[in-house]
C-alpha cells in the first residue's frame, strides 16, 4: 500500500506469452495514455519475461513513455507468485498512482494477488475508466482526480463506479476488447529501464507439466463489420442470409446467446456479457431483442443497425438505425443493395 501520490505514474501490465504481446496491453495503452495526459504524468508499462526486449518498442510506439523491463529465465513462463513479487517490489519503489491489467486469465490471476500483497483496492473487469472527483460524505472529504473504475455488476444489471480514496495505487483489471487498440506511431520515443529480478526457486510454487495452446479461430474483436443474428433468425439455414450479407460487406458473423443456445451458430461467435465484447465500426443486429447482457457486448460499436419486426424491442433504444420488419424480407434487400454498390 502506498499513500495517495498524485504525481505518480500511470502503469499498465504488458501481458506477453512466448514472446508475443497480448492485445490487452495495446488496448490499455490507448486508454491509459489519455488518463496519463489528463493527470499530467508519464505512462509506463511493466514487461516481464525472457528475451522480450523487442516488445518494448511496440509498447513505446503504442504510447508509453517508459518500459520497466524485467528479464530473467525464472520469469520466462508466467507464474503467480514470482510475477506478483516483482510487481509489488516495483510498486513500492516507484509508487505509481494507477496500475492497470487486462482482465484476461493471467490478469485476473495476478492482479488480486498483487493488490492483496500491497493491501490496496482492486476493481475487476472494468469496461471504462475516467478521471474525476469523489466526495466522501461520511468523512466529509473531497478527493480530486481519482480513477473512476466503471464496471457492470450484478449480472450486468447495474453499472458501478468504484474509487480508491486512501490506499493506493488505484488498481483495476480491464475487460478485453472494450477499448480500441492504440495505433502504432513509430516516431514516438520512450525509455527502457532494466529492473532487477529478485526471484528464486522458492518463489516457483507450481511446476508446469504440460500445456496446450489453441489458435483463436474466430476473430470477432478484429472485425470492422459484424452481422449478428438472434433467436429471431429461426434456424441454422436462415443464418445463411447473415453469412451472405457479411460476405458482401467483408465482415464477420456473430450471434446472441439465444442463437448459440438454439444451435444456429457455435459458441465462439457469441457476443455479450458471457461472450465476446466487440466494437466494430458497424454492428447489424438481426432478430435480436437487445437484452442488457447482449448490449454490454456491443454497445460501443460505431454504428448499430437493428432489424426486428417488433417496434418495441429494446434493441431500438440504442440502435442508430432501425428497420422494423421481417428479417427474411429485409436481409435479401440489404444484400442486393450492398452488391449493387459496385
Amino acid at each position: 500500500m502506498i499513500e495517495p501520490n498524485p504525481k505518480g505514474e500511470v502503469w499498465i501490465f504488458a501481458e506477453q506469452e512466448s514472446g508475443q504481446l497480448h492485445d490487452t496491453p495495446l488496448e490499455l495503452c490507448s486508454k491509459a495514455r489519455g488518463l496519463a495526459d489528463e493527470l499530467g504524468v508519464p505512462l509506463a508499462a511493466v514487461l516481464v519475461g525472457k528475451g522480450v526486449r523487442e516488445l518494448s518498442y511496440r509498447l513505446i510506439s503504442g504510447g508509453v513513455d517508459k518500459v520497466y523491463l524485467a528479464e530473467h529465465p525464472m520469469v520466462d513462463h508466467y507464474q503467480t507468485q514470482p510475477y506478483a513479487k516483482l510487481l509489488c517490489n516495483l510498486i513500492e519503489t516507484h509508487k505509481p498512482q494507477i496500475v492497470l491489467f487486462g482482465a484476461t486469465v493471467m490478469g485476473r490471476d495476478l492482479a488480486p494477488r498483487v493488490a492483496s500483497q500491497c493491501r490496496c483496492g482492486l476493481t475487476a473487469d472494468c469496461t471504462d475508466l475516467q478521471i474525476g472527483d469523489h466526495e466522501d460524505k461520511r468523512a466529509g472529504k473531497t478527493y480530486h482526480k481519482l480513477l473512476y473504475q466503471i464496471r457492470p455488476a450484478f449480472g450486468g444489471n447495474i453499472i458501478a463506479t468504484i474509487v480508491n480514496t486512501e490506499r493506493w495505487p488505484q488498481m483495476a483489471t480491464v475487460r478485453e476488447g472494450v477499448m480500441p487498440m492504440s495505433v502504432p506511431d513509430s516516431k514516438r520515443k520512450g525509455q527502457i529501464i532494466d529492473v532487477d529480478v529478485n526471484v528464486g526457486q522458492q518463489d516457483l510454487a507450481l511446476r508446469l507439466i504440460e500445456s496446450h495452446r489453441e489458435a483463436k479461430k474466430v476473430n470477432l474483436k478484429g472485425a470492422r463489420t459484424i452481422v449478428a443474428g438472434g433467436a429471431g433468425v429461426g434456424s441454422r439455414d436462415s443464418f445463411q442470409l447473415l453469412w451472405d450479407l457479411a460476405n458482401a460487406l467483408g465482415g464477420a458473423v456473430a450471434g446472441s446467446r439465444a442463437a448459440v443456445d438454439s444451435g444456429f451458430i457455435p459458441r465462439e461467435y457469441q457476443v455479450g456479457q458471457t461472450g465476446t465484447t466487440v466494437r466494430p465500426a458497424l454492428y447489424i443486429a438481426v432478430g435480436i431483442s437487445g437484452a442488457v447482457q447482449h448490449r454490454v457486448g456491443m454497445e460501443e460499436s460505431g454504428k448499430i443497425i437493428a432489424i426486428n419486426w417488433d417496434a418495441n424491442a429494446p434493441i431500438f433504444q440504442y440502435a442508430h438505425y432501425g428497420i422494423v420488419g421481417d428479417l427474411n424480407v429485409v436481409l435479401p434487400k440489404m444484400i442486393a443493395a450492398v452488391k449493387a454498390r459496385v
Partner: protein
Amino acid sequence: MGYNCVVLAKQVPDTHKVTGKAMKDDGTVNRAALPAVFNPEDLNALEMAIQVKERAGGTVTVMTMGLPTACDILRESLYRGADRGILLTDRRCAGSDTLATSYILSCAIRHLGKVDLVFCGRQAIDGDTAQVGPQTAEKLGIPQMTYVEKLLDVTNGHIRARRNLGHGWEVVEGALPMLVTVTEAANDPRPSAARRLMRYKAAQSPAEIARQVSIDMKQADDAARAAETKKRTEALAARGLLLEQWSLDDFPIDFAWVGLDGSPTKVHRVQSIVLTGSGYHEVAPTDDSIRTLIHELIEDHTIG
C-alpha cells in the same frame, strides 16, 4: 492420513433469473425479488473437495460469510457430503470489499488449524470479480491454482490439475497447502443424498433458532425467549445438528482491516441499467430506403 479441505461458498441472488417479475417499473432490477441460490461454481468447488475426500480421505468443511439465511447453502452442502458447515456472520463484516473479505476468511481458515486444500468457485455471479480466491491465498501465504477445469490427482501432499487458459490449457502441479479456484466445467456436482437430506434438514444455526423462537413466542419476555433458545440450541447440538456460527470475536483478527473501513475500494456511484429511448433513425423496409441507408454508410466510410 487424508486431507483437510475447506470450501469457501457464497449465497448469491440468482442474477441469471432476471425475469419480468424482478424488474421494477423504472426498468431496473429489483434485487430483493431474486431468489437466493448457492453460487454455481462454489458447487463445483464443493464437489471437488468431496472427491478428494473420497479418494484420499480427510474432511470437508464448508465456510460461508453472510447473513444467517446463508445457512441454506450450509445445509445443502451437508446433504451433498460435507462434514461440517460454518456460518461466519457479524455486522462488522458489512461493507467489506474483496480485500477485507479475503482477510476475514483467511483469519477464519487459520483458526481451523491444519488445512491442506482451500477450494473456491472461480467467481460469484453477483460480482463476477474472481478476486476473493487469489486474495485469500495471498493472505494465507499459500500458492494458488486458478481456473481449474479438471482435478487430475492429489497424492503424497501434491495436487495436479488442469487450468483453463481461455485459449488452451495447462497442467500444473504443486505441493500442499494450495488454494484452488474451480470452474463450472470441472465436474457435475452431485445432487443431495436422500439419506443425508433426511438427517440434516433439521440442522440450524443459533441465529436461526433465535429467530424461530421470537416468532414462536411473540408474547414472551426476553428472558423466557433466551431460555427457550438455549434449550433448543442444546437439544440440536446433542443430536449433532447445530450449524456452527462464528463471529469476529471467535478468532484473532485486526479490526482495522475489516468492513467498510478496511476496504480500500469505495462505491462512487451505482447506476441501474435503464432502457432509455434515445431515438434512432427509422429506415423503412423498402428497396429504396435500404439502398439509401447503404449509400449513407459508404459515404461516411462506415463500410468500405
